[in-house]
């Protein structure tokens, strides 16, 4: 991976900004053909991932966060899924144009994936050792004996005690937290450049979640891969992510460095989300703030802002056009026509919109 090639100048900010992204997604569009018509799950999503960075992706169920990540490496069954448009550049390769064989070579050594539910994504009829050795033999060309040694190291790495013994066990003999550690070990087996973790701690208890979060922080320092962490828990993001991407209605609502987004949220959805979540520390509010209404069902490509029905700062332009992402700070952008600093519509976005129409 050429790390210090072209100096991509962006407006100020982090040192990592200058490194060439490992993963570059442009204008990704995924739809599902269902009996009730098309569902536009992902609409023109663009983002990139820098080496060694941890990108948090937040959103409600149905906001398209998992579908986006699964489209990248062709994990969605087609039909019903169909990637309509877009470009996913990884290692000089457009993943959307790859043959199945090329993709297979990317999954594992290129991109590792941790699924949400470790019970359903581990095969119950094979031992954990077998499932750990499989990618090592297939992708890394190891012999069975070498793979066995490496499998033991991997279990040690993710903090499973008595690893040599546990390799002979089946998934049901592990607890939820331990199973998730096994999943992480499998994803790490081929030393991926990018690790995509799809709600890896949602099914776990808080004390176990804390263990897994510590483990990931530790592994990041040791191995230094880029991570995409999908979750709906803003607290988890606050603790581990460098950059956060908020998704709503199949689009990116806001994206920026984590401290910046939490301190100065510039999309009404992010703002509402941060106010909705109660905390176990600090002041306790008497009444919870709510986001009224329901998330949209995406029957067609959006022609207006998908959040407008639940938005408190809605005005006429929001019904006419879908706001594009525009910069609101260093490395920070939001898809909204409203300027929260001036408490008025954003003039630049409106002008751009007028030029379009």
């Amino acid at each position, binding site marked *: 991976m050429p790390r210090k090639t072209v100096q991509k100048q962006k407006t100020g900010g982090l040192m990592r900004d200058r490194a060439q992204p490992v993963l570059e997604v442009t204008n990704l569009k995924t739809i599902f053909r269902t009996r009730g018509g098309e569902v536009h799950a992902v609409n023109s999503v663009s983002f990139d991932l820098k080496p060694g960075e941890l990108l948090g992706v937040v959103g*409600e*169920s149905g906001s398209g966060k998992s579908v986006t990540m699964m489209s990248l490496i062709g994990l969605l069954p087609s039909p019903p899924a169909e990637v309509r448009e877009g470009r996913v550049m990884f290692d000089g390769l457009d993943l959307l144009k790859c043959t199945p064989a090329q993709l297979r070579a990317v999954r594992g050594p290129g991109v590792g994936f941790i699924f949400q539910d470790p019970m359903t994504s581990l095969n119950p009829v094979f031992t954990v050792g077998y499932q750990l050795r499989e990618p090592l033999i297939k992708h890394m060309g190891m012999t069975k004996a070498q793979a066995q040694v490496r499998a033991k190291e991997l279990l040690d790495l993710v903090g499973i005690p008595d690893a040599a013994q546990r390799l002979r066990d089946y998934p049901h003999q592990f*607890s*939820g*937290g*331990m199973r998730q550690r096994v999943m992480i070990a499998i994803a790490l087996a081929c030393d991926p450049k990018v690790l995509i973790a799809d709600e890896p701690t949602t099914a776990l*208890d*808080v*004390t*176990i*979640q*804390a*263990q897994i*979060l*510590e483990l990931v922080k530790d592994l990041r320092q040791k191995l230094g891969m880029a991570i995409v962490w999908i979750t*709906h*828990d*803003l*607290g*988890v*993001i*606050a*603790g581990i992510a460098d950059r956060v991407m908020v998704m709503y209605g199949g689009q990116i609502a806001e994206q920026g460095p*984590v*401290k910046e987004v*939490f301190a100065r949220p510039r999309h009404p959805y992010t703002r*509402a*989300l*941060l106010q*909705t*979540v*109660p*905390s*176990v*520390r600090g002041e*306790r*509010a008497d*009444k*919870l*703030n*709510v*986001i*009224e209404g*329901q*998330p949209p069902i995406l029957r067609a490509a959006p022609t207006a802002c998908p959040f407008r029905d639940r938005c408190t700062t809605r005005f006429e332009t929001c019904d006419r056009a879908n706001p594009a992402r525009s910069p609101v700070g260093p490395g920070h952008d939001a898809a909204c026509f409203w300027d929260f600093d001036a408490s008025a519509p954003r003039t630049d976005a409106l002008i751009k919109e007028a030029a379009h129409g």
Partner: protein
Amino acid sequence: MADGTRAPLLEVEGLKMYFPITAGVFRKKVGDVKAVDDVSFTIYEGETLGLVGESGCGKSTCGRAILRLYEPTAGRVVLGGEDVLAAPASELRAMRPRMQMVFQDPQASLNPRMTVASIIGEPLDEHTTLSRAQKLARIYELMDKVGLNRDFANRYPHEFSGGQRQRIGIARALALNPKFIVCDEPIAALDVSIQAQVVNLLEELQDSLGLTYLFISHDLSMVRHIADRVAVMYLGRIVELASRDVLYDAPRHPYTQALLSAVPEPDPNAETARQRIILKGDVPSPANPPKGCNFCTRCPKVMPVCRELEPAFTEVAPGHFLACHLIQEAAVGAANSGANPGR
């Protein structure tokens, strides 16, 4: 709040719920899963008691055993002066209108082949002699109360979103004007932005109808919002019970401390500075709990006595109950007495 002026509505004493483990062709009993093991607490009228704990700690079983949806192994449950566990089946049925339940999964707890009106009206069919028109009027009233559009009365559950389905479940629980409702993880299956809507609805209903809740949840931040007092369960036992502010500001049981410290904060600055207590290992099996204190296998402050003696559940300060040798020993040491702590 736990002020002495309020009358207790629900008293639970020494509640035990063991599920037998059987083996062999003759299904011989070889052991027990001690899902709820000697739990005692009181809920005062009009308050919300939060019951928190990790999955598998027995909090849902506890809620169900109180309503006698299971037949508890031992214990006493008194609701409004009547013994729930001793009542024969016919009397129990007459008590049902006063105690209701909101279930965790609104998808699974609503019959997909019944319309919303028939789901909400079913308790009325069973327990009242209202005419059709009266029933329908009551159904509409309930739908208004939980914020469902009356026009949807003839729709089926699958036509609703998760939050709306949970509202149907709440309307059904309210149909017979209950005094006491067990809310078993009512928001766990909902999205963050919808959770707040349902929690606010439950609070409004409590204010307007004078309801008493047992709110079971694993979400510590939501419990902090809704509960007046909070009980923390671990492996079938309550380890700490205190008023909300005391429990969240100054938890005393090592498990409560670890549990609270594990909850991530939606604030990156606080989160990077914060020192977490990370518990080692997993929750032991309730079929084979450790000797002594149930928490002794993971406790960061474990002492030799913890592996021998089970700590008693005692009141260490007014309204603050605790089952831990650490605090009890300190209290005994302070009193300078040689008395044997616990049982």
